[in-house]
């Protein structure tokens, strides 16, 4: 077992973990149920969390490696997510919702890195987030509507 201390959603936590503990499982064990597993092969993006503010696949991160780092899941970013997810809801693009947390987390990362992204930038940044329900177009419309309303407010 390895002793680790990390900051999870702003709270410092210490725990002992197996050397091969995977961050995704660790986070679900710590009641971060937004973090989902959709594949076992790094392809779906459902398990996206922010590590030191960078989006990563928690399915492929050793918990031991998170030692000393800052981890954010959707549980810790409710406010930032609430700014834009309503626009996705207005499109009905939430659909089954299972891919939503990973998609929302990566969209947060996108909007932090590109405050005013083009459609192409949005698509390529989010390419690693699969969705089988929506056909993606509604997610794009939602993000676009959010950006438009934000730039209108700014004027």
């Amino acid at each position, binding site marked *: 077992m390895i002793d680790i201390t990390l900051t999870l959603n702003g709270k410092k936590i210490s725990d002992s973990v197996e050397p091969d503990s995977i961050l995704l499982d660790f986070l679900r064990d710590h009641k971060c*149920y*937004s973090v*989902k597993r*959709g*594949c*076992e*092969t*790094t*392809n*779906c993006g*459902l398990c996206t969390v922010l590590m030191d503010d960078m989006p990563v696949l928690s399915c492929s991160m050793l918990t031991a490696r998170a030692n000393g780092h800052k981890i954010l*899941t*959707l*549980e810790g970013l*409710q406010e930032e*997510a*609430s700014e834009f*997810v*309503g626009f*996705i*809801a*207005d*499109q*009905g*693009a*939430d*659909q*089954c*919702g*299972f*891919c*939503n*947390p990973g998609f*929302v987390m990566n969209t947060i990362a996108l909007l932090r890195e590109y405050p005013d992204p083009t459609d192409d930038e949005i*698509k*390529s940044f*989010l*390419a*690693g*987030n*699969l*969705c*089988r*329900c*929506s*056909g*993606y*177009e*509604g*997610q*794009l419309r939602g993000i676009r509507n959010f950006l438009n309303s934000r730039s209108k407010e700014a004027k």
Partner: protein
Amino acid sequence: MEHRNYNAINKSVRKKDAMQLLLGKPVYTEDVVPDDALVVKLLRSPHANAIVSEINTKTAKLVPGVVDVYTWEDVPNTRFTNAGQTYPEASPYDRLIIDRHVRFVGDVVAIVAAENEKAADKALKLIKVKYDVLDAVLDFHKAKDNSLLVHPEDNWVAPCEVGGSNLRNLVASEESSHGDVDGIMADCDIVLDRTYHTKSYNQAMMETFRTYTTMDRYGRLHVISSTQIVFHVRRILSHALGIPKTMIRVEKPRIGGGFGAKQTAVSEVYPAFVTMKTKRPAMIIFSREESQIAGSPRHEMEVRVRLGASNDGKIRVLDLYTLSNSGAYGEHGPTTVGLSGHKSIPMYTGSLEAFRFNYDVVYTNTMAAGAYRGYGATQGIYALETTVNELAERLNMDPTEIRYKNMLKEGMIMPAYYNELASACALDRCLDHCKEMFDWDSKYPVRDMGNGKVRTAGMGMAMQGSCISNLDVGSATVKLTEDGSFMLLIGAADMGTGCDTILAQMVAECMDCSVDDVAVFGADTDASPYDSGSYASSTTYITGKAVEKACMDLKSKMCTIAAGLLNCSPEEMYFESGLIKRINTDESVSLKDIGVKAQLNNPTIAEASASHSSPVSPPPYMVGMVEIELDKLTGEVEILDFMSVVDCGIPINPALARIQAEGGIVQGIGHTLMENVTYTENGKMIESSLMQYKIPTRLDMGRLRVEFEHSFEPTGPFGAKSIGEIVINTPAPAIAHAIYRATGVWHREIPITLEKIAMSKPEEDKE
């Protein structure tokens, strides 16, 4: 078409669960499982066809944390089907919970129940199995009447006569025709005889199969499962486990996608069996690999189309034969195949003089197929529409013109669709609209973009049904609460599609209230009124009508209660603008007052339940057009623009209808260009992960545009028909058509891979 102003329907209301889902709340099966639930894992067969000659679980049971290991010796010997369908069950009873005879790579050999995942995994490795490996039937062309039988057992039962026989590897078989097919074919100027092949595409919903079971406070089996069919799961478990239905409760939390996959009880029986044995909570979560190799995907089909036409482009006769691969078990085998003909041929009712439609559904030693959005129609429509496109190209006729000449129009009787009347059909308007918006006339010609790249377009039409006529039952219970708001209880399953919200919109429309004033609960066999479940495109059309009926009944009950308050007879009362009013007076009673009265010295219950079935299944219609850029040297296909126009009657929630269409189109693009299913020579599936089974990303679908042409279906709620399934049917024929335009090659097997495009040469003109 004109349509009136509605209060709550035909409006893009947010889904009731939207914010919960978007903010990542714990609302799915795995999120509600307690920590002490046993982890259930399955040992699966590495062989396509084998008999378990010896199985030793002693060592596995000694692993610390392992609670028990079950084999074929521990389960009942009663065969059942996992197909979630209404009575009379069309699919054969051909399964045991664990069978000594394993019939595909991935079939279940043992069930492990353990305190944690690591112990379960370790136990799986320590189970010692000896197999008598048998030859396998892997080629579905060779299955029928093969001496090698997939189901040689003598307790195989077909509860319904569908032309099947386990002694012929036949799940179902039928012949039907109308008119003098051979005579007219012989008289035709041009006959195209083409054979198409489609694969067993996986639904690849983001949440894999999963079920949690426990004993409830009454000692009953409580099942929480990611399912589209709570009532059918109750029946299947009762049958498989041999316990009465009163001892089982099945509910679904939120579901992470289904698309038909969860219309089969793929995962439920295993933890249920463990809970019955151990009396402990148990949970199974299918890995993505298990979902890929042992799920319930689309039926692989080969469709032979013979089309007879005159030189002026009149399609006079159609003759279809479909060979469907049901895999190792027969779930949905007898029913999916029918749609390949019944939901394709009727589109050409306008000119058709005769048709024939025959089919065989066979067993093989591959993964069992099931229900997938489109349910056979997808396969048949790809075949027929591609043949019609080829006819147009051969006659040098614009493919839209050939559609106008032959298509079904409103008011026609459809001999190929059980003689139903096309009571609401805007297919012609869909084509007008799509052609104009898409700018067909300038996109259809082949344009050389230089450097080996060309742009061009293709098209396809589609239909589906809106329920299973004379079979499906939808029900709804509507209750008035004492603040004048409503509670809607349903047994239909919202799997992300938004049916909870759509049905609430209907309550709000009937009751003149806001959608926010309607709370929805579903689906739970203990609390919900019976519903066949969410499949066959039926929820809006069938359950929606039940909602309308229940609301009508509730209004009359509210009148009775209001009459009590005003000391008059119920006949004097009527519902208007959210109030119960008294005729010829200005007296009225608010719903709130009625709600309160309902709880105070009152003999009339302020709730109503209703069921609905339909003698018809009115088709929705759709036209899809695609513009592609194709690289002739590499074979790469870029989807530039996918335009579609759908006639789903009146869309109850246009935003959700649009998303259904967009989602279905992207799945169809996946089937056509990149999703493949192939097997090794030993019958092991190669595309067993999302690393190898490639579904489209947001960079693979180009630009999607969806429009609606309204029609009014008199038998549907507020004129509505369905939308959930039809939307997957146009991409394959449209893209195959565009690829032909670009390369001169008709691809009659999907997916059309880059290699096939780059390396195929235009075929010699055969006719």
